[in-house]
């Protein structure tokens, strides 16, 4: 492998890694706050990117507001999911399988809706800085990708502060760890749960608008993102947003370097195999923290 190729792989891996990390972060947020694994996370991203696309290309809205709309759309979807999918399942004494099937159904619904509306074509969303790229030695990275990394890092830190130092954030954590205790001290547990899903949705929407300019928006992109984000989340211990980000970056780098040695068509196969290996060999994450028992 030449140095250039190596470097290019690193840059690509970093970029992808932060995307996976964002999705994984969303999964970690929802799991931390509701003890539910959201199989729809990648489709929050899909929706966010689709909304941003429609708003910017069909309605002519400038980039930044369009992006924000996409993020908000993710949040709204999160709210809808909590109300329409999670609560009814909970009311009917849902088993772990029920939540899985319901969120999977939601994922397929979003994907199918996009299929219906957009067809099987891919669409391109304009990114920050257009097509401009920055040179790093012999390799190049798109300006948008740099922004992606920066924004993701800021968001992770913001989230850490939110959970650690704001009353709402701590209430959300408390509500998931100890329902009865939280109720006793006056925390509105159902509301906290809704907020968890909204936050997860916002994270998903953000991931969508950030990744869309780099890959093409396509009705099937959600599921794959979810799986990769899930791998990132597990690596990070499943309940840690920061851990998910680290996991995502690691995953992105490994995927990228592996692909550089093999044909790019196998990219997803490699990541899926990594996901399965992670689940079997280190379900507790890299540091073996107390997360959910995977086996």
């Amino acid at each position, binding site marked *: 492998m030449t140095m250039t190729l190596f470097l290019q792989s690193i840059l690509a891996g970093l970029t992808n890694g932060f995307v996976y990390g964002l999705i994984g972060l969303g999964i970690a947020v929802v799991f931390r706050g509701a003890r539910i694994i959201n199989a729809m996370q990648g489709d929050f991203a899909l929706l966010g990117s689709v909304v941003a696309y429609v708003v910017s290309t069909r309605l002519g809205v400038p980039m930044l507001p369009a992006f924000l709309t996409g993020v908000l759309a993710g949040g709204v979807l999160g709210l809808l999911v909590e109300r329409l999918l999670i609560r009814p399942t909970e009311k009917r004494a*849902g088993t772990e399988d029920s939540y899985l*099937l319901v969120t999977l159904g939601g994922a397929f*619904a979003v994907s199918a809706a996009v299929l219906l509306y957009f067809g099987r074509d891919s669409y391109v969303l304009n990114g920050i800085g257009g097509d401009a790229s920055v040179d790093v030695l012999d390799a190049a990275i798109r300006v948008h990708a740099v922004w992606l990394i920066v924004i993701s890092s800021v968001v992770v830190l913001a989230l850490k502060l939110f959970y650690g130092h704001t009353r709402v954030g701590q209430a959300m954590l408390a509500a998931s760890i100890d329902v009865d205790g939280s109720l006793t001290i006056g925390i509105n547990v159902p509301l906290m749960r809704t907020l968890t899903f909204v936050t997860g949705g916002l994270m998903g929407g953000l991931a969508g608008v950030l990744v869309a300019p780099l890959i093409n928006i396509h009705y099937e992109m959600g599921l794959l993102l979810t799986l990769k984000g899930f791998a990132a989340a597990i690596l990070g211990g499943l309940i840690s947003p920061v851990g998910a980000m680290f996991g995502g970056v690691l995953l992105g780098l490994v995927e990228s370097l592996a692909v550089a040695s093999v044909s790019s068509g196998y990219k997803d*196969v490699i990541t899926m195999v990594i*996901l399965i290996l992670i689940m079997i060999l280190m379900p507790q994450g890299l540091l073996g923290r107390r997360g959910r028992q995977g*086996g």
Partner: protein
Amino acid sequence: MASLTGMRNRLVVAVFVALLATVWSVVPLLAGRSTVDMLVFAALYAIAGLGVAFLLGQCGIVSLAQNVFFGIGAYSTAYGATVLGWPAPASMIMGIVISGAIAAAVGVPVLRLSGYFLALATLALAVIGHVLFLEWDWLTGGTLGIGGIPPLSPLGYRINTPVRFYYFVSPILLVLILIHYNLLRSRTGIAMRAMRDAPSAAAVLGVNIARLKVKVFVSSAILGSFAGSLFAHYVSFVSVDSFGVDRAINFLLIAVLGGARTIAGTVLGALFVTALPNFLSRIGDVHALLFAILLIGAVIFLPQGFGGAVAQVWRHFGRRPDHAGRVTKGSPP
């Protein structure tokens, strides 16, 4: 008094079955070609769906990987027929052996996972399978696919029309369903459901959980492969599009809608899932969305599926008087 009720119930059941059999045998003569075509697909998907339903309902395992085995069966038949020139049963067996081997190899590590992890691992397998089908185009023909698969010709009689295939595949489906009912009335069948309900307690009674899971996964894969082989012979042309993740979702939907705990419910689920796109084909690709909504609806509102509703009716006629002569009411699982 009690035995008369028993006899009456058995009579009702017999009449019902006879009615069903009559309808079944007469449908192709009355219905149009496209309806029979749809029924054939329903039967094929029911066979594959049976594997998924069994895993889900009797063992509590959500498998989204059935499309892989369906594809392996189809491609084995396609490759065996067009490239190797093998007789149909040989290619079919090849598909089954490959599917079984992969299911066993993958199953041993993966089935140790539980719940979400296991389900998502099977989804990852579905993706892997789909990509490999695409990438290994020297084997599968990729998006161009493999065509010219000859129809099945047992003893020289060519099964090359929907009607003929209908009469061919329906008894096969029936036999497979009966076989699975056999399984329920055996120690293995009880062990599976025990494993589903309380794995620790099952282990204490001597059930080797890990091995049993693999065995059931392998049989599910074999069903999928078998269905895929038949599928290839029916459509005579296979390509990657038929074996993607959406196919896996379809099979799961069949299991969930049909009601995984009742085996016969799978048939109802398959009929529904196959018939619906036909009715909606005019509106475009809307059936995918509808399926997703149905999956959600089924999980929330109809956890026992259609089959569960049927099972309730069935149990009504299956009531047995207890020792005191009173009829004990069985409740649906």
